[in-house]
């Protein structure tokens, strides 16, 4: 394969301009569809996963097992976690801190509107600082809560917009949660995650006293910060062992779950990936059809150029030379089609993401096209071109010189 072959192939393609263009049109529609769908899917996936990615890699959470998706986390579990476990867990080696978290669902009213959501507790005493550091909580306005503040709350940054209650909530405003009045003392910095930005934080003592009639024995989640994130698996196992003993259950019959944020992220990721894969497969069908178009064009061109092939062979062209001529042609069709397809695909992906953001007002709609995807698509389009070009090229290379010279068009 040398430059000469390459030039000959390009010339041949140019000779049949219309056909080459139509063939490439097939490929670039396919590539554009695949690129834009994968790009949008990736963007959406990383935006969604990003919503959950705020937790550090050195944090574990423990929850009593129960029916998935029933109420707030940990609610309605048949055998809830008791409030004395956190202290016991704290004594496990490798743990910096462990504390109870209470989560309560309810209604919140402001500006004559009502919303349903949940409020989470913030530990008091020395754990408060660890908790705030662990989640990297900082206020953009006002201040964080202090111990013993019973009717004050801190809100996430989403409440400063007017989407939730029709007008922004400011520090000093009063809101009604489950029919009780609270004063907003601080607004958190924006984190770019709905879990965080729509958070309502109440002091642990206040939450138990006001919403649980002073009974804090049932804990929703125990949050654990480990000393060394590399030992997180080991620590999780020690916690499981301790909890099996405390709750008197056998191995394999645990009625609780110890999970790392990474695990939760991984399972979410795999679901989203599955959906994306399915959509991509349907889009790839069009590339396949484009490939068949290349094959068709190449077969036609072999038939048309039978005489030419005969002449080339009779003046000494080897089988491999003829093969590479046709092979380069089909590869080029794929590559050039792929390149144009990538340009269109990238434009479509970013354009529709921008339109989608305006139309739906959701920051989740993002396009993300990595260099790997572009290079991958380029290689893939070349592979498609050559793959579907192989059979015609073999046919061309095997033509008998005498027979081909004799052939009439």
């Amino acid at each position: 394969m040398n430059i000469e072959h390459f030039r000959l192939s390009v010339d041949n393609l140019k000779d049949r301009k219309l056909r080459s263009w139509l063939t490439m049109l097939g490929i670039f529609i396919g590539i554009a569809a695949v690129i834009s769908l994968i790009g949008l899917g990736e963007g959406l996936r990383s935006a969604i996963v990003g919503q959950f990615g705020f937790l550090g890699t050195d944090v574990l959470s423990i929850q009593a097992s129960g029916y998935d998706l029933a109420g707030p986390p940990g609610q309605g579990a048949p055998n809830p976690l008791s409030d004395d476990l956190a202290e016991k867990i704290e004594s496990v080696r490798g743990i910096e801190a462990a504390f109870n978290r209470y989560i309560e669902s309810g209604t919140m009213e402001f500006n004559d509107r009502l919303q349903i959501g949940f409020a989470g507790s913030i530990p008091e005493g020395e754990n408060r600082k660890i908790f705030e550091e662990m989640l990297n909580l900082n206020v953009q306005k006002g201040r964080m809560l202090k111990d013993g503040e019973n009717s004050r709350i801190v809100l996430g940054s989403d409440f400063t917009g007017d989407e939730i209650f029709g007008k922004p909530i400011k520090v000093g405003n009063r809101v009604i949660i489950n029919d009780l009045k609270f004063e907003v003392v601080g607004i958190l910095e924006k984190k770019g995650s709905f879990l965080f930005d729509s958070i309502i934080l109440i002091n642990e003592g206040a939450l138990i006293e006001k919403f649980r009639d002073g009974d804090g024995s049932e804990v929703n989640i125990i949050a654990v910060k480990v000393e060394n994130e590399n030992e997180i698996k080991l620590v999780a196992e020690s916690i499981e062992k301790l909890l099996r003993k405390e709750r008197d259950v056998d191995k394999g019959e645990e009625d609780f779950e110890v999970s790392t944020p990474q695990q939760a992220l991984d399972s979410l990721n795999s679901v989203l990936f599955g959906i994306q894969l399915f959509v991509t497969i349907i889009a790839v069908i069009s590339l396949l059809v484009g490939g068949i178009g290349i094959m068709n064009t190449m077969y036609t061109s072999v038939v048309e150029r039978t005489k030419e092939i005969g002449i080339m062979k009779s003046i000494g062209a080897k089988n491999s030379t003829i093969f590479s001529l046709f092979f380069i042609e089909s590869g080029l069709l794929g590559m050039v089609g792929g390149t144009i397809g990538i340009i269109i695909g990238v434009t479509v992906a970013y354009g529709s993401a921008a339109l989608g953001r305006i139309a739906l007002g959701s920051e989740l709609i993002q396009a993300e096209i990595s260099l790997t995807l572009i290079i991958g698509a380029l290689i893939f389009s070349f592979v498609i071109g050559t793959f579907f070009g192989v059979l015609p090229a073999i046919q061309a290379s095997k033509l008998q010189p005498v027979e081909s010279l004799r052939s009439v068009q």
Partner: protein
Amino acid sequence: MKSDEITYALKNLMHRRLRSFLSVVSILIGITAIFALISFGLGIQNYVTELGEEAGTDKLYIQAKGIGVPGTDENFFFTRSDIEFVDKIKGVRKIVGMYVSTPEIKFDGEIEYRFLAGWNADMHEFINELFGGIGIDKGRHFKDGELDAVVLGYNYQFEDKIFKRKVRLGDKISIDGKEFEVVGFYEEVGNAQDDSNIYISDDAFEIMYPKKKDKFGYAMLQADAGVEPGGLAEKIEDKLRKRRGQEEGKEDFFVQTFEDALEIFGNIFTIINGVLVLIALVSLVVAAVNIMNTMYTAVIERTKEIGVMKSIGAKNTDILTVFMIESGFLGTVGGIVGIIFGYIISKIGEYAAAAGGYSFLKPVFPWYLTAGCILFAFVVGAGSGFLPALQASKLKPVDALRYE
């Protein structure tokens, strides 16, 4: 269109067998995908319509809002007196409250967490009507006041679906530590969630969960004959709101007709299906380009032939017809073969979905889907052949004859 034009077109296609074959393949791939996707989409619409018809238009439900699966949030509920209040509203024939919980279920040493509902025996008939005549598959319903009888969803009867061992009538299972005897199994609803629910009497529920006594997550109700259900829903919402001291837009519950709920469910599926069909359509666009390409090539190859035909009296329309028949035929064959493949794929998908517990995902193949796909394939074929055919028909006889 004369028959010899058709024979001529077919002969030409046969002559370029390989090329025709590839064009057919490219169109059939797209038709396969579209046929399979739409057959599932229509199947779901059918399922929704059937459910709606069997449930009748007179059913409504009230549901507490909250976080997670509706009705499971313990902080949102209706009290018994709320239910009695609604019962007295004019236009309400009857109402039944439903307890819900998510307990730990133990059988043969295995633990699962499933959805538990507790209701009055009045509800049996209601549920039967609501879920399209779904009744007891084996055994019997629990009776009012029966404290240790449980009816299980369809899936419990099979190995490895919920528990490793299959549950039989008369077996004991433990719900949050209390033993119940299995007295019946429900018929298949068709989705893995509902088919793994369990049901006990409201009396048994109240004894097991005294804290939840008189706190209902759902209530189902039936309108009086002749009462317009949409209007009734608004009326109930209005009255219940006032009773609970809530202002408009501040309700912590909602009332909906069963029909509306089904429609929303159906619409979501239709939208998802529509997006997938659109993506699959891209491949048909590519196939159209392929056919166009094949036809342009055919026109060039047969330039001389066209010249000969014209010089012995063929009209422009004759030439146009011949080429349109050729490309239309490519499309139609692709369509027919595509439908066959699509049917096979849908059937495989159906069995896969049923095995996964989603037997409501059942494709249907109405005649208009088949006819539509073939027609569509023909239109794509003929349409993409139009430009090349037009070019062919406009060739000047003299130039065409001179063409080398």
